[in-house]
């Protein structure tokens, strides 16, 4: 029954995105005209492109910061490491409103950064990279500590040992962290609404605007596409995970 509660609303949304009637109320026959309208909706397409740009840069930065950070914190004993761990943990659980307003105050009042793509990428990276870091760190715990030493005994420099031995081992965690950053960024509304400029409106901001007004058949179609994409990604990752664990 809980599964019905979880799936029914989404399923109905997909079904009614093919309704030719403008209102949800009556089923007036199968139609794909809302999908066609969507494909010519310049505003939404631009917003989607903006989302992709932000998500791409966020993913690159987060993966870099998270992977290097996880490795360094694993390999060395830094003073204040517990305080550092707390600081990494906080952006993952902090209410997004707080993160949004505090970053807004920082950008506008103190750094004088104009709101736009840069501020969006900075904000998104701040809550995305801890997820990469934690994922990579979890995998590092299963790492054989002699692996790096063996590589260095065989003549590899620390950098080469990291690149040729450690990195391949960490790759699954890095990839899943990167994917997570990408989806988190693509989906982010609350932090974005505070830190975006007029030129860098992302798709969730537009979706919110449409949903606030009420029912909109184009939004039904857009949602259906997103849901389909999610289901496909879920099935792929599920089968991949199955294959990895024999």
């Amino acid at each position: 029954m809980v599964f019905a509660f979880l799936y029914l609303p989404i399923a109905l949304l997909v079904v009614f995105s093919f309704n030719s009637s403008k209102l949800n109320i009556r089923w007036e026959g199968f139609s794909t005209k809302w999908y066609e309208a969507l494909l010519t909706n310049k505003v939404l397409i631009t917003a989607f492109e903006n989302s992709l740009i932000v998500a791409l840069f966020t993913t690159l930065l987060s993966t870099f910061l998270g992977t290097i950070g996880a490795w360094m914190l694993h390999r060395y004993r830094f003073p204040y490491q517990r305080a550092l761990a707390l600081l990494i943990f906080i952006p993952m659980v902090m209410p997004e409103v707080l993160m949004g307003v505090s970053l807004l105050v920082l950008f506008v009042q103190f750094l004088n950064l104009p709101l736009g793509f840069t501020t969006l990428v900075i904000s998104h990276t701040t809550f995305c990279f801890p997820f990469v870091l934690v994922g990579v760190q979890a995998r590092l715990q299963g790492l054989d500590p002699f692996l790096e030493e063996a590589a260095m005994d065989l003549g590899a420099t620390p950098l080469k040992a990291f690149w040729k031995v450690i990195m391949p081992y960490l790759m699954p965690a890095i990839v899943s962290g990167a994917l997570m950053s990408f989806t988190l960024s693509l989906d982010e509304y609350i932090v974005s609404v505070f830190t975006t400029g007029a030129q860098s409106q992302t798709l969730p901001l537009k979706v919110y605007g449409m949903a606030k007004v009420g029912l909109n058949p184009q939004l039904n179609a857009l949602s259906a596409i997103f849901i389909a994409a999610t289901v496909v990604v879920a099935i792929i990752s599920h089968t991949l995970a199955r294959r990895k664990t024999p």
Partner: protein
Amino acid sequence: MALPAAVSNTGGSDMHRRKPGLLAWLILLPLVAWLLLFVVAPTIMLIVVSFAERDALGRIVYEFNLQNYARAFDWVWLKVMLLSIWYALLTTILCMALGYPVAYFIGRAPERWRTTLLLLVMVPFWTSFLIRTYAWITILSNDGLLNALLVGSGILTEPLALLYTPFAIVLGLVYNFLPFMILPIYTSVEKLDNALIEAAYDLGAGPVRAFSQVIIPLTRPGIAAGAMLVFIPSIAMFAITTLMGGGSNPTIGEVIFKQFTSGRNQPFGAALGTILLVIFLLALWLTNRQREERN
């Protein structure tokens, strides 16, 4: 403060960990700088601004005063805060009531089914929360599916106002945060020792007693973690409450949002934000203390 094992990995393989040299510090620097600049600094700025004033144009004037806080504890705004806490509590309780049986069922299911069942819980959660909320709007609104069904079948003569009500707000929050409750409880249930449950039965406990005196206490860590993961974001989540509630009974998140956008009283918004920050840190500290006591 106790942190997830993955983050606070200070013990364990210490043998192989070196003292950092200058180079190690240089490589770690970007991470530390990022955290200081974009996590610590903004939080301090928020608190600083909450003690400032604004001029007639809405600009911030840095003159120390407590008037934002005095205003925040005015009955009008206090009511907003209490309402937000109430919605969040209700959401947490409902998520527990709905989520516990599901988590228990999945945790006790045959092992080969567990991943698939968990995935089924997670998939709706992976779609955008805006889309999930919009799905409910299409169902609940005056010309939505449910009303069409009720009026069309003759049960009602006029559409029922379902959207833009407290009911809709809590429904939206529960729908969005339910997986946050299910996952940690599932982790606890999975670890349950069967022998302990059997022992309870052998000692004469009925199903009810076995459940309330053995199973519930053993899964309490999961329940506590789930409660925190649902409660904290629901207090602050203004997007769902605005979409589902229509903004007539705003929550604290909605008010903060308005002060920073259309309300143009950023210091007051910052004061409300600081209060929310205190609630957040308090909730975090409480759950951590509980966890430490248990260990």
